[in-house]
């Protein structure tokens, strides 16, 4: 009798185990545990007890807390809008110029524009703080070259201009990523398609808007969602530029990330709380999840992916 014993494929769990153990222990489970902690309160001795929705009730009813939360959410939305309106269109233009115009030196441009992305936010924050500082006067001098010195102001310190200024610094730093993704998508379009368009008498601009652009919609979608997640999770730049999680002048650049840090660890006179921190983190989780889900349901399903 011949028996073929099918052995248990031990190699599969062995391949999977290390990655999923570390990911589970230090990413997935902490996330679930944070959601759980948001339903608990902690007394002065650190003893936790279940409290249902009490933390959320406090967050939305306490006048100071509620005001801070809605402010942070609104600031974060505007931060995201500025990034979407400036960073991604400029990235698209730069990538299109590099990919479609047949010019030399693309590698140099690409590397240079990508460089700020590599720098630590700490460095970026300080560089711009120095440049925009009225003490050093670099910004003012440069504006005087074009006769605009009267417009110069302490932009980072003024309540009205702080958010736009910080957002533009963020754009300056991170534009390399969308640029390189869009660039890669553009040069991935097969030449035959573009040649066919050319033979049919399509001019470069028309070819771009009616052939190349629609073909890279999936990449533009990816860029949008990456910007969204990155922006609603931002923290470092604000922390560096405003030397701590204070939220800038009159909290005008207080993002959800800085609010989270402040409620968790405390800042200045405010005392930190683990469970309130978990509550803010849980709300951020809901917001990010809602954004990502909306993207997948409403946008991604309508995009066609092309296999060349």
């Amino acid at each position, binding site marked *: 009798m011949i028996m073929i014993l099918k052995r248990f*494929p031990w*190699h*599969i769990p062995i*391949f*999977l185990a*290390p*990655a*999923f153990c*570390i*990911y589970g222990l*230090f*990413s*997935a489970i*902490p*996330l679930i*545990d*944070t959601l759980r902690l948001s339903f608990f309160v902690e007394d002065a001795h650190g003893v936790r007890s279940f409290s249902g929705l009490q933390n959320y009730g406090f967050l939305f009813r306490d006048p100071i807390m509620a005001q801070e939360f809605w402010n942070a959410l609104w600031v974060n939305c505007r931060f995201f809008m500025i990034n979407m309106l400036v960073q991604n269109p*400029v990235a698209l233009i*730069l990538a299109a*110029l*590099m990919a479609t*115009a047949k*010019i030399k030196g693309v590698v*140099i*441009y690409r*590397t*240079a*524009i*990508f*460089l700020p*992305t*590599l*720098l*630590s936010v*700490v460095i970026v924050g300080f*560089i711009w703080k*120095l440049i925009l500082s009225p003490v*050093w*006067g*670099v910004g003012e001098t*440069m504006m005087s070259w074009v006769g605009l010195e009267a417009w110069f102001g302490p932009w980072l310190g003024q309540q009205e201009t702080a958010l736009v200024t910080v957002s533009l610094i963020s754009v300056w730093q991170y534009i390399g990523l969308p640029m390189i*993704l869009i660039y*890669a998508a553009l040069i991935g379009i097969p030449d035959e398609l573009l040649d066919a368009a050319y033979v049919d008498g399509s*001019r470069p*601009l028309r070819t771009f808007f009616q052939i190349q652009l629609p073909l890279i919609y*999936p990449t533009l979608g990816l860029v949008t969602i990456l910007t969204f997640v990155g922006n609603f*999770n931002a*923290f*470092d730049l604000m*922390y*560096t530029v405003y030397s701590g999680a204070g939220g800038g002048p009159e909290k005008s650049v207080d993002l959800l*990330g800085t609010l989270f840090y402040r409620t*968790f*660890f405390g800042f200045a006179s405010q005392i930190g709380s683990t469970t309130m921190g*978990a509550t803010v*983190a849980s709300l*951020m*989780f809901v917001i*990010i*999840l809602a954004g990502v889900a909306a993207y997948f349901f409403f946008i991604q399903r309508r995009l066609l992916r092309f296999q060349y």
Partner: protein
Amino acid sequence: MKKIQQALQPFTVHVILLSYTVIALFPVLLVIMNSFKSKRGIFKDPLALPTAKTFSLVGYQKVLEESAVVTFFANSMIVTVCALALILLFGAMAAWALSEYRFRGARLLYFLMGFGIMVPIRLGTVSILNTMVALDLTNTLTALVLVYVAQGLPLAVFILAEFMNQIPKDLKEAARCDSVSEFKIFFQIILPLIRPAIATVAVFSMIPIWNDLWFPLILSPGESTQTITLGVQQFIGQYTTNWNAVLSSLSLAVLPVVGLYLIFSKQLIRGITSGAVK
């Protein structure tokens, strides 16, 4: 319409790209340039190149006298290299299992990892800190390495799996016919084949690890375990009035990332364009 098209001559394109390149590079160059100047030179004419009269290395002296900077630098190196090695090894193993073998639950595991790409690990910070306290790992580099591996794995698994799907079947089947073990197939055939993808993943994972401020601030703010990012942040805070030192420490902190990028950049572009990131 015709005018716009004429305007898009190579010359115009160069001018546009060059202008943006100047915007991208100018702040960095400004800092590096001024780090080589005396205090007087820095303030009197910040936009001038260092001349014989204004040249000075006093800032660098100040920074290098701080012996802690070397420690911070070494910490960052250790954390980044260890985390990167583990992300690449474990990520490739998991990607191989998920893309090659059919088994129950594969889709669920895929989804679990995909979740990690979209939801930032920072949101679990409260609980991560609790775990690290329980494991007695606060103020250790191990804590940072573990968190960064967890942070980097999802993207690594996805990019590598996409790449592994493109490896021709014949190659693996031929090896299996010769009854080569699954482990040997993976380590000796597959790993060498996906080198460009590995470089792409390395760059994408390395940048956020090297530059992260959040986890060092929370998990290991102690003097002996600070990373260079956190160290520079605090160093600059201490010396805000000593502009020489600030500018020099900024310049020094720029160097390593740029070096690493130049090593990987060729592979990076090849990796992205050949479909590693889609």
